[in-house]
């Protein structure tokens, strides 16, 4: 899953990026409202964490503009200002959730998870497909009784394919949702990671199907 964090404090953005990357998220960041808006307009993020107090455009404006442009990514607003009026304004401009600073990191991550879960095809925190079992909340993957160690990108691909089961996902889409903006779009990395992922969980190639010219899907 890929998220965008928009906050003008680098000292808050950096630890948040580390924390989410440790949980196999791809994280893009922006330090002002304008860059935040531009990034969210281009890429389809699975969640946007948006501070209210931003230079250039404030959080409310960013949310309004994104919704006006048809961006449907869930938005979680962060702010130190907690007047009821600000909270209402936040929701009215298109936010899906709201946390006041200082927040509990764990709470922020659980809320982001919840927003992403809402948007995905499955609300389950544990999914079983044949012998494969994925526990999303604990981020543990098992085949039968054996625990499989996946790297962040392999886990990210498996998670995205599973949560969008029933659709064929193109390489571009995988790139957009599992990698952050630092990636070069002409890379072979999706193919490479699908290969290594299959080696680990789907040796007989029955689980992850490659639809030539279209993309991949979970069976």
């Amino acid at each position: 899953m890929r998220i965008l964090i928009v906050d003008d404090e680098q000292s808050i953005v950096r630890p948040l990026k580390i924390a989410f990357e440790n949980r196999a998220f791809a994280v893009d960041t922006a330090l002002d409202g304008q860059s935040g808006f531009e990034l969210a307009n281009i890429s389809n993020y699975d969640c946007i964490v948006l501070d209210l107090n931003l230079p250039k455009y404030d959080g409310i404006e960013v949310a309004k503009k994104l919704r006006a442009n048809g961006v449907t990514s869930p938005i979680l607003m962060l702010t130190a200002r907690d007047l009821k009026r600000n909270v209402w304004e936040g929701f009215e401009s298109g936010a899906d959730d709201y946390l006041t600073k200082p927040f509990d990191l764990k709470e922020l991550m659980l809320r982001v998870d919840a927003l992403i879960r809402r948007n995905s095809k499955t609300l389950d925190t544990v999914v079983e497909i044949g012998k494969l079992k994925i526990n999303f909340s604990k981020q543990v993957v098992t085949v039968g009784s054996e625990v499989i160690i996946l790297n962040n990108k392999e886990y990210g691909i498996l998670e995205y394919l599973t949560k969008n089961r029933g659709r064929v996902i193109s390489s571009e889409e995988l790139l957009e949702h599992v990698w952050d903006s630092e990636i070069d779009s002409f890379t072979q990395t999706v193919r490479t990671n699908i290969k290594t992922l299959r080696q680990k969980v789907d040796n007989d190639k029955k689980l992850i199907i490659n639809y030539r010219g279209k993309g991949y899907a979970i069976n």
Partner: protein
Amino acid sequence: MPSTKSNTLPFYKSVRFKLTLFYSVLVYLFTVFFVLAINLSINNYFESLPDRPANLPPRFQNIQIEPDQQHLFREIRLADLKEVQRRSLIALVPLALISFGTGYVMSGVFLRPVKKLQSHFDTLDEKELGFQVDVTTDDEFGQLTTSFNELSKRLKNSFDLQTRFIQDASHEIKTPLTIIKTNLEVIADDKKIAKDTQLTSIMADVVGSVDRLKDLTNQLLDLSRDKKIKSETVLCSEYLKEVIENVIKNSNLEKTNVKYEIGKDLSFSVDQNLLSVAIGNIILNASKYGRTKSGDLKLKVVAKEVEGEEIQLEFSDAGPGIQKDAISNLFDRFYTVDSSRSRTVSGYGLGLAICKQIVEAHKGEISAENVKTCGAKFVIRLPIRHNKEN
């Protein structure tokens, strides 16, 4: 003691009455004087006339009347005059009513801008600050209205400034707190740190401190915020039970037992959110200082109406009571009984100060006393407000 009663002025004290009286008495006296003067002069005129009127109509000219009967003319004329006088005097009665009536109506029209201003003053609490009244007259009342509008604007400005200051201060303090907390939590999350129990507990202590700073900041900001209340009518028993159960649950208060003595149909008009904060603080205070020797918190909550003027809420515990020298300072900011500020009992001494602010924003009173048998009792008195129709 309950403050501002509804503004009904007895009529005999009002300016309107004085104006009406002044106007009608003046008109009346003038008319009476006029009538009497006319009557007097007519009287004199008639008295001065000879017995036989000089200007009799032609057909009476040739009537012969004996000299000793000529006084009859005079008597008839005087009798007629007396009748006119009698009628004019009787007319003075309805005149009194008419002059008073027109005086009353006129003074009402005249005083209309005053009434309008007064009703706006009354609603200033509930309406938006900065409310402006239309200036409709060009006189002293118009000037008064203009002054009111200026005052209203100034009040709103200072209120806005204060709110903005508090929000800015809030942001300035909470941002570094957030930086500290989030970075610490990420470090504590690190697998290497998580394995080291000593480091983990150190991190937990530091993060806990940041949380306490956060709570203190919120309380301080709460205290410095002006309390504008939004009242709703609620049923006392439901409301109090819900608020107290929530406090006990959310703060994990153990060994608590609450007894309620609340009139079944008793209701009051309060700001539900603010008052719940005040009540919560009293309960938390009781939990800290009002437990029995065995550690039980035994609360008694009483709500009753007093003389149709106030609602009285009483919160009693069965603890050691309040130290004598503490009672007068109990509701001061940062006052804690344990003056060394050691952390055996947590708290910054702001909870009761916040209670006092909230109760006073409702135009009520809060006090504390020791109950003779044992324990402390907190009493909140709220005036019964007669809600105006909005």
